[in-house]
């Protein structure tokens, strides 16, 4: 623990060196996974070549493979993972339950419903889309945001009680799944596989324009969460203690819910419904650096990014020539992890 007080104490902060060290280590892991992701695929490079290519010293072919094919999807995986993980950390803090996650609160399901509706509504008789597929992320975002808004409105009763939030979220998740199924049946068959792929969560086909949208969105949200970290800490103690310590609990809770919605909406829009990351990443991070937001938020973001990048890497290398969506792998690890958490949680 070290006090940090530059400018004659106008700015002051308490820094835990061990946490800083752990976060730097996580960042190093992220870089290794990043380089491995750039190197591996149906065409393989050595890590050194991948490293050189990333910094612009590869031949034109290497440059094309890394920059045109791999980098966009790696970066989208990175930011979507970080965003979903942070949203999970925020929700778990607000609800004070380690089992809360964006999947559970209906946000992902809302995004899926919107995507299938979009594909069903904007297809003509020859099964071609009547509008640009470029609007799909917007539809997903709106779906996630509207569902979140509905959950908050229905859960509101003289303030937002975390338990009501979860219960209403579970209810709306079921309703959104029903909408999704109906749209898949109504819509053209060939779109169903596309919708299915999207719902599982995949960064296949990501482009640089996707990166340019999701990256600033996630980074700005990360900064906002970090800046509000001390309020998030207070939320974790529950209403009575937080009010006693002078926190404006309800106002801050709404702020954090909006932030979580923005994060999930962004991730769902560009990477689909990648599940369980928002559940696993904060939990692993808490084990590593504790519950204090100053360390928890960056660690969670890094772990989330690493998880989704690894899932995508596995998805496009393990079953060649078949490509498996990243969401399959996060779910394959995440579902047992969820059950393990259920067992471990007392009471």
């Amino acid at each position, binding site marked *: 623990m070290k006090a940090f007080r530059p400018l004659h104490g106008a700015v*002051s902060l*308490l820094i835990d060196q061990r946490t800083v060290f752990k976060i730097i280590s996580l960042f190093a892991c992220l870089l290794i996974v990043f380089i491995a992701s750039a190197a591996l695929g149906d065409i393989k490079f050595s890590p050194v070549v991948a490293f050189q290519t990333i910094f612009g010293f590869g031949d034109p072919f290497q440059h094309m493979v890394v920059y045109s094919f791999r980098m966009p999807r790696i970066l989208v995986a990175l930011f979507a993972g970080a965003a979903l993980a942070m949203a999970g950390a925020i929700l778990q803090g607000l609800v004070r339950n380690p089992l809360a996650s964006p999947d559970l609160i209906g946000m992902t399901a809302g995004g899926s419903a919107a995507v299938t509706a979009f594909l069903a509504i904007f297809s003509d008789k020859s099964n071609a889309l009547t509008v640009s597929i470029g609007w799909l992320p917007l539809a997903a975002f709106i779906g996630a945001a509207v569902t979140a808004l509905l959950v908050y409105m229905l859960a509101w009763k003289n303030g937002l009680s975390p338990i009501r939030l979860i219960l209403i979220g579970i209810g709306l998740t079921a309703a959104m799944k029903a909408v999704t199924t109906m749209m898949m049946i109504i819509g053209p068959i060939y779109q169903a596989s596309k919708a299915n792929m999207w719902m599982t969560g995949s960064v296949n086909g990501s482009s640089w324009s996707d990166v340019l949208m999701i990256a600033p969105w996630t980074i700005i949200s990360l900064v906002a969460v970090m800046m509000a970290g001390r309020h998030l800490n207070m939320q974790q103690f*529950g209403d*009575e203690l937080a009010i*006693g310590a002078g926190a404006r609990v309800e106002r801050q809770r709404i702020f954090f819910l909006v932030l979580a919605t923005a994060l999930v909406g962004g991730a769902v829009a560009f990477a689909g419904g990648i599940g369980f990351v928002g559940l696993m990443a904060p939990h692993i991070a808490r084990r590593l650096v504790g*519950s204090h937001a100053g360390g928890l938020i960056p660690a969670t973001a890094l772990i989330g990014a690493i998880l989704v990048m690894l899932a995508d890497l596995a998805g496009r290398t393990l079953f060649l020539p078949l490509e498996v969506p990243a969401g399959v792998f996060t779910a394959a690890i995440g579902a047992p992890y969820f059950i393990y958490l259920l067992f471990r949680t007392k009471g």
Partner: protein
Amino acid sequence: MSAIIMDSVTLRYGKESIIEELDWTVPEGKITVLIGGNGCGKSTLFRSAARLLKPSSGHVLLDNILLEKMSTKEAARKMAILPQSPAAPEGLTVLQLVKQGRYPHQTWLKQWSEDDEQAVQKALRATSMLELSGHPVDELSGGQRQRAWIAMTLAQNTDILLLDEPTTYLDMTHQIEILDLLFELNEQEGRTIVMVLHDLNLACRYAHHIVAVKDKTVYAEGAPEHIVDADLVKHVFGLDCLIDRDPLYGTPLCIPFGKGRRAVTG
């Protein structure tokens, strides 16, 4: 002088009124203990004093200022609250917990000023938690954990301290340890302490001022020596008892009648 003043306060949960048009004051610099049977409204009264429950009519004044005219941060610099059995997030260390007490004194830029550091050190020392400051709160024993929570409220550095049943779930040794700590804080620093206690005998020993709550209002209040007698216990708790003098401290000692074994007569 009064630390908290209630002016014809009515408290409700939904439609049911729990306290009706109560005028009540908390004396400054004293230990005030709320007593009463289960469901009598003492916790409701406590929550209202702690600004966790807004009165449906009437006013509450903190330090002679209307509570509704005060920001929650200002109020938190005057009064700290420890709710009943609070829970800490997983893996949070004692230092990180106690540090949260500084929340109303911090701003976005100043999150660990020298004042913050000194207040936290002082709170850890007062509660003998210095050696345990690096330990996760969820790994501490019941008594240690309660001391850590009290340290957090102390770090808030307020003149008034409100504690809801601070000795519940603690064994006898730790109950005395916690009450001694609060007694010293009152003696040495003149802090106003308001708490809810279930044990009438301990309440009589530690309180300067006892407030008995019954029938939606304050039934009786005053020094334990003056107000606690068999009649009061019968009315407030519905219990027959013998009130004797505590042989050690001279305060009222309540010995309840009951079965168990044959009474010694004569």
